[in-house]
């Protein structure tokens, strides 16, 4: 079930949710839920997703869902899973859908703890690269140079967009040596679905980081979501990778389309200077050198069996 054509007709994330037109996050959740199916419990932190799918009395999921707090996605999902195990429902998938702020910033402690304990959950970060729910404030995964409402434009060095580069959350998760870490982009459906399939099938902590363009926050057209997701990969800005049982694979060698092609579609980058664009180009180059070296170092190798008893 790794192609679009094989996906079930049935939706478990339903119409009538109130996401903005063209929302990448809503697409991610809809597709992941198609693959996970009915035997699933969903956790949502405070996020765009919560507001557009779980504003009382309406709810967009066909399966049970839980919401408690913002920074608790990984731990709440883990708590649910442990309880389900006690109730004899170990076969139920527990998935947490969290945004980048809830993952890379405020949720990092609980995420790291759950990963280290190898809690049996699937954690999906839909990365729209800022705190979109609260109105486009910068997060740890906001890219360098991007305008946000807390990195506004002005004449000083504090007015050039975000001054730091994107936090590499998947690499942090790799450092926890969990069974599965993968990145995915809406622009590459086959790759994306294959990874959801794998993540569903595995036991233990699984982390999926999906780039989910936000037309509103990125100041882009509402029909550009998929194009942006594709270009992010083809420019080399967003790397498709998979870290599975200790082996790192780079899934797609990009065309290295000039980053300008990607940046120009987004109002959040409209102000970038030539120097800033050059910095992004250099960052892409360095990142690929590093990731290739990592993939080489973490390539296939003879397996040492490790017993995990729970």
């Amino acid at each position, binding site marked *: 079930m790794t192609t679009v054509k094989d996906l079930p007709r049935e939706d478990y994330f339903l119409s009538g949710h109130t996401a903005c037109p063209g929302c990448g996050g809503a697409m991610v959740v809809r597709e992941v839920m198609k693959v996970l199916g009915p035997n699933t419990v969903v956790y949502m932190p405070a996020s765009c997703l919560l507001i557009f799918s779980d504003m009382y009395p309406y709810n967009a999921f066909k399966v049970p869902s*839980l919401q408690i707090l913002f920074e*608790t996605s990984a731990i709440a*999902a883990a708590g649910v899973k*442990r*309880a389900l195990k*006690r109730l004899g429902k170990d076969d139920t998938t527990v998935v947490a859908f969290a945004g980048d702020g809830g993952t890379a910033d405020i949720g990092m402690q609980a995420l790291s703890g759950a990963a280290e304990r190898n809690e049996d959950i699937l954690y999906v970060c839909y990365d729209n690269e800022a705190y979109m729910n609260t109105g486009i404030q910068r997060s740890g995964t906001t890219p360098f140079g991007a305008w946000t409402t807390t990195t506004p434009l002005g004449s000083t060095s504090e007015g050039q967009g975000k001054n730091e580069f994107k936090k590499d959350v998947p690499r942090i998760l790799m450092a926890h040596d969990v069974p599965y870490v993968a990145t995915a982009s809406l622009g590459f459906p086959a790759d994306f679905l294959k990874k959801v399939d794998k993540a569903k099938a595995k036991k233990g902590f699984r982390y999926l980081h999906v780039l989910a363009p936000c037309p509103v926050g990125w100041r882009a057209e509402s029909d550009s979501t998929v194009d942006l997701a594709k270009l992010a990969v083809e420019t080399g800005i967003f790397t498709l990778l998979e870290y599975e049982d200790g082996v790192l694979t780079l899934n797609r060698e990009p065309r290295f389309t000039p980053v300008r092609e990607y940046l120009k579609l987004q109002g959040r980058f409209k102000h970038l200077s030539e120097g800033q664009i050059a910095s992004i180009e250099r960052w892409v180059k360095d990142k690929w050198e590093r990731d290739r070296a990592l993939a080489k170092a973490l390539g296939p190798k003879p397996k040492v069996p490790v017993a995990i008893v729970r």
Partner: protein
Amino acid sequence: MIEMKPAVKLPTTGERRMVTGDYAAAWGAMVSRPQVVAAYPITPQTMIIEHLAEFLAAGKFDAEMMRVESEHSAMSAVIAAEATGVRAYTATSSQGLALMHEPLFVSPPMHLPIVMSVVNRTVASPLGIWVEHNDTMPQRDTGWMQIYVEDGQEALDMVLQGYKVAEQPLVELPMMIGMDAFLVSHTIESVDLISQEDADAFLPPYKPVHAYLDPQRPMVVGAAAPPEYIQEVRWETDLRMRRAAEFLEETDREFGRKFGRTYGGMIETYRLEDADVALMTLGTVTSTAREVVDRLRAQGERVGLIKLRSFRPFPAERLQDATAHLKAFGVYDRAVSYGVGGPSYIEARNALYDTTTMPILSFLAGLGGRDVTPQDVELMFKKTLAAAGRGRRASGVHWIGTRGVSP
């Protein structure tokens, strides 16, 4: 030559052993059969989770034990577990409870009856590890029931009683059980370790009524809500807190019938019937105060004692009845609401406003874990006696045993 007689035999249903309060609490948790335990270590709560881990390792106890990375996660994990439909337990103290402050608000409106032992300890600053109630008292408005115990036995018994009250379908509120740092947690004393069989007979397995996560019977648990719905949720949570009072009383009586020990429900009174003045205490100071009452009684002073066990729900009616005949009332607190006085003093004054015009005095002592001696307690009684009959103007806040400050 000092002559001694053997101690009075205490009611025992299980195995009586010399154990710490932390051990007793852990035992209470074990025989309550929680299916998920999540905790993070903090002095002086550590022994509770260490003992639970030992019980687990030895095969005496069977639960999912989550050794999480923070108290915030410990509380969030037990909330999620309860929301899924199982019984859950955690324990913490001081800074840990402060870190839990955010998730504490979550479970009461959601009908999730968690039980948590809290070893009462100073909250920084200054950093201190000794007893103070300024960790639990500020959690007053989170919707948790709050009980304060006096010794290890009560710390154990209240875990069992706690689940029984908390899981009542008409209550479904979480409960925190406060036990004084070191004075209970690390103090070795004789405790009746209730057998699993007796515990099972008292506390049936948890069956969630209103909230659970089950793909066969799907339910939304936890939602964002607009103003059209939240006020009704607040009202309903308030109603359950009010209802909890009668279940606290009834459960204590039922416990007494089975185990031969009762604690008086929300308050316990000591030599109060013919007293002119009384002191209200909570936690371990109560034990010392009983001795002081006896001593003063021997000197002809008509003094009595009220032990405040339940801070939430607050026993307003019982307090009104118990104090109706008094001429003055002193309230001891091991925490201060800066600029006002002791938290339970504030509560008591509020509760008694309609029924009395006697002076009500606030006594602050033992803050930061300073010992509260019989002399300190005697001074509280003397000040209350002196205020008797002088009307509300004789009320006031008294810092007992503070260098440079006249009490």
